[in-house]
């Protein structure tokens, strides 16, 4: 699908994200102006007190944005998912250019003018308002311009914490390995940055010429900036007010998770009277876990093996029942409820071509190890390296190949198998490509891979308050087979269908 037809098909959503994006940038830049200019003035007038201010905003700028979201998520008031934390991060990034240009603007005012103002009898305050600030204004506006342009770029990261904006498309596109969707986010945000840069450059020139040519006082500029800032902040506060009887459903940022998020959300919508807020496409396991602990989401689907090793940092265990019980226990001590598994596992899958499996009667990895010495294997880079990847697998099953395994990109590996470039691969058990290319998954009969059963995790408090939500989520346990999941992934990834539609059709068949 071309970029233009994608945008045409998603016109409404696109405009919504664009407005969200602008909203994030406007509020954060506005707030940064209200905070940064006074800080800059302070720093310029009292260098001793001001040095630490400049030092702190400088240091804050060097923190990678994703890491900053991580720090801020668990904090009260400014933390949490959604626009609030995104705006906080954007303000931090906008402060540096604004504080810096305010300091520079004030310090670069001709000392003769400061002396003249003082000699004429201006108090320090009058000197600041009548001489230093007006003369520093072009420099300050230049700082606002830089801040806004940085903000447009940084705001794309905000999608990782569910704040929306054009970053939604970038993250969704990355998850779907679909360049068109990535570009649908990246190109408009780049254009937006250029447009803002152009508009504010004009404003800056306007201020400069107002200052130097006609001699009119730039009061209106200050008034306009302050008004815009205040309106933007008021709008943000209003937008946050009023949300109750809501269940927030989260998901990580790849196709399967988004489909599962939709399935959970639609099930709750169908079986309860609650309003469901979707916070899908959150930036990974870490962010989902933080979000559910802080109450920013009420439910999402996790994988038992991931929870066991990545969240609770336990040594890998290959017994599915034991892992499930251990994870459920640990969740319950954090006031979180782990539901019974949905019915499928998203684990590593050792795959061969379907025709080969049928003609040779290959069902398990043990079956394959008898033939493998004539084969060429293809694995992802990480799988080849990790001790719990290929080396352990080869040892457990006594696998030998014709040549060392070929390292390949995960997105190409299924096709390479279908095209007979390789004969055995390690893929993803729920990949839609397994059906599409008629591949066969060999059973891990010696249970080498840890279990990755998909199961919903929810906040126990939310379930206590709304037992019907508990029933709704529980109704999904054991209902999604690995074949169902593969088909749905395929429908979204390969057929480019909408995740919500695919989820709806699945649920219709389930009833």
């Amino acid at each position, binding site marked *: 699908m071309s970029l233009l037809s994608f945008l045409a098909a998603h016109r409404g959503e696109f405009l919504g994200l664009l407005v969200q994006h602008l909203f994030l940038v406007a509020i954060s830049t506005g707030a940064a102006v209200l905070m940064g200019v006074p800080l800059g003035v302070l720093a310029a007038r009292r260098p001793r007190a001001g040095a630490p201010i400049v030092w702190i905003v400088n240091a804050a700028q060097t923190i990678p944005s994703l890491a900053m979201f991580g720090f801020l998520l668990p904090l009260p008031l400014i933390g949490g998912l959604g626009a609030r934390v995104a705006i906080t991060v954007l303000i931090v990034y906008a402060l540096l250019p604004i504080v810096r240009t305010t300091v520079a603007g004030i310090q670069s005012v*001709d000392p*003769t*003018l400061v*002396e*003249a*103002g*003082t*000699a*004429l*009898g*201006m*108090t320090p305050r*009058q000197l600041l308002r*009548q*001489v230093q600030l*007006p*003369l520093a204004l072009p420099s300050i506006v230049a700082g606002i311009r830089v801040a806004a342009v940085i903000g447009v770029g940084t705001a794309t990261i905000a999608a990782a914490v569910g704040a929306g904006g054009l970053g939604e498309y970038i993250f969704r596109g990355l998850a779907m390995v679909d360049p068109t969707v990535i570009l649908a986010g990246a190109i408009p945000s780049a254009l937006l940055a250029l447009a803002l840069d152009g508009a504010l450059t004009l404003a800056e020139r306007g201020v400069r010429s107002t*200052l*130097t*040519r*006609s*001699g009119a*006082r*730039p009061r209106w500029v200050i008034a306009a900036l302050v008004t815009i800032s205040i309106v933007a902040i008021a709008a943000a506060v209003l937008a946050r007010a009023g949300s109750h009887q809501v269940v927030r459903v989260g998901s990580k940022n790849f196709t399967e998770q988004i489909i599962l998020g939709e399935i959970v959300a639609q099930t709750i919508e169908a079986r309860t009277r609650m309003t469901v807020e979707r916070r899908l496409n959150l930036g990974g396991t870490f962010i989902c876990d933080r979000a559910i602990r802080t109450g920013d989401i009420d439910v999402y689907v996790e994988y038992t093996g991931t929870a066991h090793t990545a969240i609770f940092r336990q040594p890998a265990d290959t017994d599915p029942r034991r892992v499930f019980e251990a994870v459920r226990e640990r969740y319950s001590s954090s006031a979180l409820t782990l539901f019974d598994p949905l019915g499928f596992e998203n684990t590593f899958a050792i795959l061969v071509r379907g025709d080969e499996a049928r003609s040779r009667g290959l069902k398990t990895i043990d079956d394959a190890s008898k033939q493998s010495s004539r084969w060429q294997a293809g694995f992802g880079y990480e799988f080849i390296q990790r001790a719990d990847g290929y080396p352990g697998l080869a040892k457990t099953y006594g696998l030998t190949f014709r040549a060392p395994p070929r390292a390949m990109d995960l997105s190409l590996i299924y096709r390479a198998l279908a095209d007979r470039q390789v004969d055995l691969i390690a893929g993803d058990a729920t990949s839609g490509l397994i059906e599409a290319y008629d591949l066969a998954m060999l059973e891990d009969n010696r249970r080498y891979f840890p279990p990755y059963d998909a199961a919903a995790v929810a906040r126990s408090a939310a379930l206590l308050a709304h037992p019907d939500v508990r029933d709704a989520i529980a109704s999904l346990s054991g209902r999604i087979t690995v074949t169902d999941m593969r088909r749905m992934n395929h429908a979204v990834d390969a057929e480019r269908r909408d995740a919500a539609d695919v989820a709806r059709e699945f649920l219709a068949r389930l009833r």
Partner: protein
Amino acid sequence: MSTEIAFRDVRLTRGAMDVLRGLSLAIDRGETLALVGRSGAGKSTILKAINGLLTPQAGEIVVRGRRTTEWDPFELRRSIGYVLQEVGLFPHLTVGDNVAIVPRLLGWPEARLATRVRDLLQLVGLPADEYAGRSPQALSGGQRQRVGVARALAADPPILLMDEPFGALDPVTRAELHHEFRRIQSEVRKTIVLVTHDMAEAMALGSRIGVLADGVLIALDAPKAIAESGDDRVRAMLRPLVEASAALEGRQEP
């Protein structure tokens, strides 16, 4: 004649340097005192001490009957006009608004202010209709200095301090402004303290001349008396003047 400004045994240091070393000086109402000296002789320091930009370490400075330390510094400065060599007109304000600064700080009503700005620009030879709305950047050096004088006179202060006011101008403009200065002074009758490194300018403008060397006043007298001084240091400062007039006389001989 009453004393407007008095220095009593003033010692003032800036950094490690003694700039004024026990200076005593009385400046009378309505006189134009021209202070002459080389760079670093302490001339500008005297001006800054009068309007409270600098505070002496010892001794006292009395301005219009009150010690500078007793004045509210902003009130003191608003009652003293100040003209700088670099002029220091505010580039973001029009010529008219530059002139109006001190009256605005004093809270004058706009109507009175507008009349005042017109009168002052007229006084310094820049008709308001043509110049009030202009930006200072659109003026020549001499015109800017005229605006600087108008700004200093705006709130009708009894005292006017001028720090090398004509130092950066070309000789023709300078001579023209000297003439203007004497005309304006005859109209407004202010107590003026003017600082210059140029003895010729001091002779041309001062009703009295003070000669400064190393933070000490070495001579204080009427121009004629200064010209006839026997002090070596004063004579050294007069030498360029004498040589210039000798050269002039020499050329007139056939």
